[in-house]
Every structure is written in C-alpha cells, then in structure tokens.
C-alpha cells in the first residue's frame, strides 16, 4: 500500500481517462467536450511517463513531448472550427451541430 508501483499510476491513468470519456459522451457544451479530450490526453501522458520511469528508458518521455505538440495543434484547430461555427449558428451545443449529418 505504501509502496507506489507502476500499477498505481496505471490505475490513476485509467480513472482519469474514464472521466474524460464520461465528459465527451454526456456533456453537450462543446468547449467542455474539448476539455475532456485534454483530460484523456493527460491520462495517456501519465501512463507513458510512469512506464518510462519503470523501464528506466527515456523514450516514453520523448513520446509525451509529441503528444503535447499534437494536443496543442488539436486545440488550436478545434477552437478555430468552433469559433467559425459559432459565428454562423450562435450556439455551442453539439445537439444543434447536425448540418452535415445527411
């Protein structure tokens, strides 16, 4: 219990990832959905860093750098799309974002 192993970090990561999944599936505000996606990316990063520490190998940390770069790109483009959509439809509710459904 007092000795922290990699399994502890993996369980924390799984719980945080599930919180992100709940946010994406249940909430309707698209800004909060974006934030839930960031939570999921953070969960993956915790996993990578924990295993990098377990294996005494830095490659996991290199991948975290790339994940952070992709997350930054995703946030910039996603929020740009969101702003363009809001200018046209005056809403951030994903239930009303169905113009391209059919």
């Amino acid at each position, binding site marked *: 219990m007092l000795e922290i192993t990699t399994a502890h970090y993996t369980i924390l990561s799984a719980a945080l990832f599930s919180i992100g999944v709940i946010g994406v599936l249940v909430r309707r505000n698209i800004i909060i959905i974006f934030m839930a996606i960031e939570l999921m990316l953070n969960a993956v990063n915790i996993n990578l860093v924990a295993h990098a520490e377990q294996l005494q190998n*830095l490659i996991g940390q290199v991948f975290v750098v790339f994940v952070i*770069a992709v997350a930054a790109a995703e946030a910039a483009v996603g929020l740009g799309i969101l702003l363009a959509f809001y200018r046209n439809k005056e809403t951030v509710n994903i239930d*009303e974002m169905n113009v391209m459904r059919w």
Partner: protein
Amino acid sequence: MAEALAFYTLSILILGLGVAVITTPKTVHSVVFLVLNFLCVAALYVVLQAEFLAVIQILVYAGGIVVLYLFVVMLVNLKRQPEEHQDPRRLAKVGLVLSGAVLVELAAIVVYSYGREPSSVSAPSPAFPVQGNIEELGWLLYTDYLIPFEVASVLLLVAMVGAIILARREL
C-alpha cells in the same frame, strides 16, 4: 513514504478536479479547474523524475492551451445556456453506461497485465554522453527522433495556418 504521500494526495486532487471539470455548469469555472488539474499532473511528473515534462506541462498546457480556451469562452458570448436545448434522440444514460464499460475494460487490462509474471524484458537507455533529464531528452530528440521532431514542427505550422484561416471573418 514520501512518494506514497505525494502520489495519493496528487491522485485525489487530479481525479477530483477532473470530475469538477466535467460537472461544473459554468464553463469559466471548468477552465479554472482544468488549470489546477494540469498543475497537479505537472507535480506528478516531478514525482516521476520527469522534470522537463513538468516544465513543458506548465508552459504549454497551463500557460498556452488553457489561455486559448479562456479566450474562446470569453469570445463565445452565450445568450442561452447550451444545456437548455435537448435533443430527444440523445441518450445520455447510454453514454454513462458506455463509459462505465470503458472503465471496466481498462481495469481488466490493468489487472490482467499486472497479474502475470513481471516481464524481465527491460531495455535501459543507452549510455548518454550527457547527464541529467533535460540533457538526455534533448539528446534523444536530436539524434534518434530527429525526423518525428521535424514532422511535429511542420504539424504545428500547418495547425497555425489552419487556425488563422478558420478564424478569419470571411471564410
């Protein structure tokens, strides 16, 4: 002992703030909880001896991405709350059940993989001509992972151009 204390404190903070992010009705409060969550994750990186990533986490996530979110929350002037309009075809309960299934699946993977014999396959990093976390990470990025590093920079450039074009007034 110190690591256990730090781990449990930070875990409770990370999970509690994560729940707060997705349950708070006001979007601005949600962004504030997200900043605190990122700072706790950065502290967890320090516990895991990844100091460079902790600094990058604070600079990029808590400093850059969250400011972007705050800008968007301020720009999007909500006249009515987004949760008011409800699509009758939307099944939020099913979403909750599905995320519970994801949690069970992840827990099963963790229990399965740690219940087996611990694999002795461990590839320690090759000897670096430099010392320290930041120096070794930089060495790896500029030798073995040079091409992915450059591809990531091109990706960031494309994302920047795309975001500017999308945010122009006339599309």
